[in-house]
């Protein structure tokens, strides 16, 4: 399966989904705004119409009031319209971005194998395509940085986005940074600050859309809040709260057919609430002497109540929030960066890869200093982890860079086919080199190559041994 234009469009459908959702929401704001304006005006107008005998000055006052109110409305409306335009511009920019791929395709030959005729295969010989991918990669990185940000003061992702937009303004339109920033803030507020206000606000703001995807978020928020009351020892409030907000969830008639799974899950949780109160009572009395209560305290049931009041509930709520959020906007649950990186590293990982500490700027405590003076003939030096360094050659393999190497530790190795340099030439010591480079060394220590060649001799660049060319052979790996 070759990478094609269509595959790329399909795997980027989220890019169109998110702005459309934002447009829909903005649309509802416009609708509400208009309805509200109409309602208020209708009453004002009827007042004027009902009293035709009012003095002109009062009429004037009323009209002026109308104008003022309408002008405020107009301003608000303009904002909504501008937002709509901004989101639509994102859609257009994303289309233009994808459409660039059309320039980088291979003209379909007769042998259009397993792809449908309509699709176009991408031409990876085109360096402009590779540069196009550079932008996309940066977008994935920004996406990750924004979504995973845990600092409140500053977002590195946003900073990078602004920097890159300075050169190429289209970046701002290719990523829904505002939405992701918001997402991140809510997530962090739950899990770090144990604060429910943002997620409640988000829920209220999206109540209708969430209902359509059978969200159980409301219950989860209330449940979490209830547990917080309990934990703070506010039993009275907890009971009152549960009567008002939780008990209705125990009634199956409050659920639609699609939500029936939610019902069973919630019922389980509700059932244990009563026990929780007992747990609380036990916990409050320091009376460990009572045999019965110490028995209960060691029971597994008791420990599960302890768990209920641990930080697990925040993790749980944040997971439900993420599930709701990603579902609502059609965003992938995993960072797209991880998805591409995992496929990429798996497809690059060879059994010749090693952790190459040369190719990084970070210090590492494992870094070894190897003495090479007397051991040049050591066979171990013929491994790639040594010979690159000894030959003063840079290993460009991304999987060998220490960071990527560690990230790809658990990934499978790519299935590859034999791919050896041209003219492999074996010296008597077993080292196989590309012949052309062997006879044309660039390194200084081989400056005697001309005199050696005259004697039909050759020097092993790694071991520095000199061999007669007659003893060297061309080998055939495939």
């Amino acid at each position, binding site marked *: 399966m070759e990478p094609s234009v269509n595959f790329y469009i399909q795997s980027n459908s989220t890019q169109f989904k998110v702005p459309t959702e934002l447009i829909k929401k903005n649309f509802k704001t416009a609708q509400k705004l208009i309805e509200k304006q109409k309602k208020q005006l209708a009453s004002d107008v009827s007042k004027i119409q009902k009293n035709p005998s009012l003095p002109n000055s009062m009429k004037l006052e009323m009209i002026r009031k*109308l104008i003022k109110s309408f002008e405020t409305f*107009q301003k608000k409306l303009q904002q909504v319209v501008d937002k709509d335009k901004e989101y639509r511009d994102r859609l257009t920019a994303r289309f233009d971005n994808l459409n660039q791929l059309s320039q980088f395709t291979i003209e379909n030959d007769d042998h259009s194998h397993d792809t449908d005729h309509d699709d176009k295969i991408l031409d990876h010989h085109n360096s402009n395509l590779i540069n196009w991918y550079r932008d996309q990669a940066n977008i994935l990185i920004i996406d990750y940085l924004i979504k995973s940000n845990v600092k409140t003061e500053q977002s590195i992702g946003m900073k990078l986005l602004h920097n890159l937009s300075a*050169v190429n303004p289209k970046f701002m339109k290719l990523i829904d940074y505002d939405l992701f920033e918001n997402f991140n803030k809510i997530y962090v507020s739950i899990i770090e600050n144990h604060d429910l206000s943002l997620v409640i606000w988000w829920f209220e703001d999206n109540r209708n859309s969430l209902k359509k995807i059978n969200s159980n978020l409301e219950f989860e928020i209330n449940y979490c809040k209830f547990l917080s009351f309990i934990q703070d020892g506010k039993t009275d409030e907890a009971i009152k709260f549960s009567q008002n907000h939780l008990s209705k969830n125990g009634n199956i008639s409050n659920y639609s057919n699609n939500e029936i799974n939610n019902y069973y899950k919630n019922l389980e949780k509700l059932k244990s609430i009563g026990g929780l109160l007992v747990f609380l009572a036990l916990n409050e009395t320091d009376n460990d002497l009572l045999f019965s209560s110490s028995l209960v305290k060691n029971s597994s049931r008791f420990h599960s109540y302890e768990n209920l009041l641990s930080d697990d509930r925040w993790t749980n709520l944040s997971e439900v929030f993420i599930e709701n959020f990603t579902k609502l906007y059609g965003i992938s649950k995993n960072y797209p960066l991880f998805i591409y990186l995992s496929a990429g590293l798996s497809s690059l990982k060879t059994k010749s890869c090693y952790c190459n500490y040369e190719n990084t700027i970070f210090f590492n405590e494992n870094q070894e200093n190897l003495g090479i003076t007397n051991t040049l003939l050591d066979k171990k030096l013929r491994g790639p982890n040594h010979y690159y360094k000894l030959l003063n050659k840079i290993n460009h393999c991304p999987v060998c860079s220490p960071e990527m190497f560690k990230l790809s530790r658990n990934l499978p190795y790519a299935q590859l086919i034999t791919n050896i340099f041209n003219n492999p030439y074996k010296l008597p010591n077993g080292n196989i080199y590309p012949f052309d480079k062997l006879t044309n060394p660039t390194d200084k220590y081989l400056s005697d190559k001309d005199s050696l060649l005259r004697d039909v001799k050759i020097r092993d660049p790694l071991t520095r041994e000199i061999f007669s060319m007659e003893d060297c052979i061309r080998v055939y790996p495939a």
Partner: protein
Amino acid sequence: MTSLLNNLNKELNLFSKAGDTNLNDILESTDDFIKDLKSLEKDLELAIESEESIDISSVGKVNKWYDKSISSLKSYNSQINKFSKNILTNPQYTIDLDDAYTYPLNIESLPISLNQNLNEEEAALKEVKKENQQELIKAIILHLLKIGQSDIIEDIIDNKDYDFQINSELLQQFKFLNEIVDDITIRHDLTKALAWFKHKYNSNVLKKGVEYEEIEFKLHILKFVLLLNGNNEFSLDNALEAYLYSKENFPRFFKTYLHELSPLMSLLLFKTIDDKESTNPDDYARKHMINLLSEFYNKMKLTFSKDWEDNKSNESRFVQDVLNNFETINENSSIFTNLASEFISYYCKDMKLSNDSSLFQGILAGFINLPPFYKYNKIQRKLSRVSMSFTQEERPNLEDNETLSSETINYNKIIAPFTFDLPFQLSDTNRFLFEYHPVFICPVSKEQLIPLTQEIEEKKTKKPRLEPSRPHNPVVVLKYCHHVALKESIWQLSRRGAEVFKCHYCYKKHKFSEVSEAYFIDL
């Protein structure tokens, strides 16, 4: 354009147009209504002055405003829904990216996760995930440095949660690189980049030669065009400056790039003539001349593109790009960005680092190879009807007949054994982008060579190994035919060294003692 793109384009246009018209209609009708109100206000003011009575029932137009607004909203809404239906929920357009995450990385998928009650195995895995998260941040730092964004990394390094040290000398060099890149991409100033080469030559670090010719050539070309046409106006001074520049800097490229240089030099010629005309304004003659010139210029571009078809060298492509954008060179940011990333790769080489960002290359390979991962996962899910867990089940056992201890399984989750291969082969078409190691597949056993990467002295550290242990199974060369295979395969072929065997390719007879170990070493 493919039909998916076409259709998307069509739907988007409808969507966008509907948004524009309908929302504008609402704004307009609001505006009209306000105008009505204002004229009413004026009438009232007049009426008060003249103490006449006035009918203001026209204020009831509010319904007209409302009806119009709502009908506009309705019509926009239906277009939004159409777009959702035709594109967003259309299965032709949707691939769930999560379905392509066949082999999850050992890294947390959430911004933060809390320490829950973990058993020993989970705790070890969590430790690795934490380490990997830091590795990813390090990779991002390197990436940012290599794309010339060194100023951002200060903010990341400041984060106390991370525990690593950066080689400050290299960091300093990257900061300088950042300046050069900003000059190229933002200010379109190539002086520093060109000076860097000069400096390197003078200090004898680089030898003038083929290796750097390409990038230098491109830089000089662009500099020439910028001199000639930098501020979008041609003057004799500009032309003279460009000419002097070319005289000084182009000759050493004549040998390789004459073909690319000639059209550029002719540019100099017309622009000079054009300029002369403008100093003696004779409108008719001037217009005529300009027409002739642009015609000639276009012909030249065409000829060059034709030639280019036959000669798709990177440099020619670049010259063509520059020619095509000659008039608006400063507006074409991609020329500068691309050149900057090329420059970066040379700069990194000089720092003895790999020439591109490893993170980017990893992602690039992902962009290119994602389709088979997606397809494979889809098929697996259909087959097993079990989601998510199959990747674990599928992990091969180290030795099939031995039962694995839980320790080994745990270890395999962190470090994949050498037997863990991708279950599908990737297309070879784009492999050329990623040829970093000589790869040898044994023609007999089909196993990939695992070269030795032993340390000279095994360290005594108790730190967990990064790699699975490597079996000793080197390449061997057959004495008479010089064919190559893995030692283990030959050992099996020769019935553990007991029998004479035939070469797998040419059937020449060999004894096990007639093969010798060998090592592929790339130069």
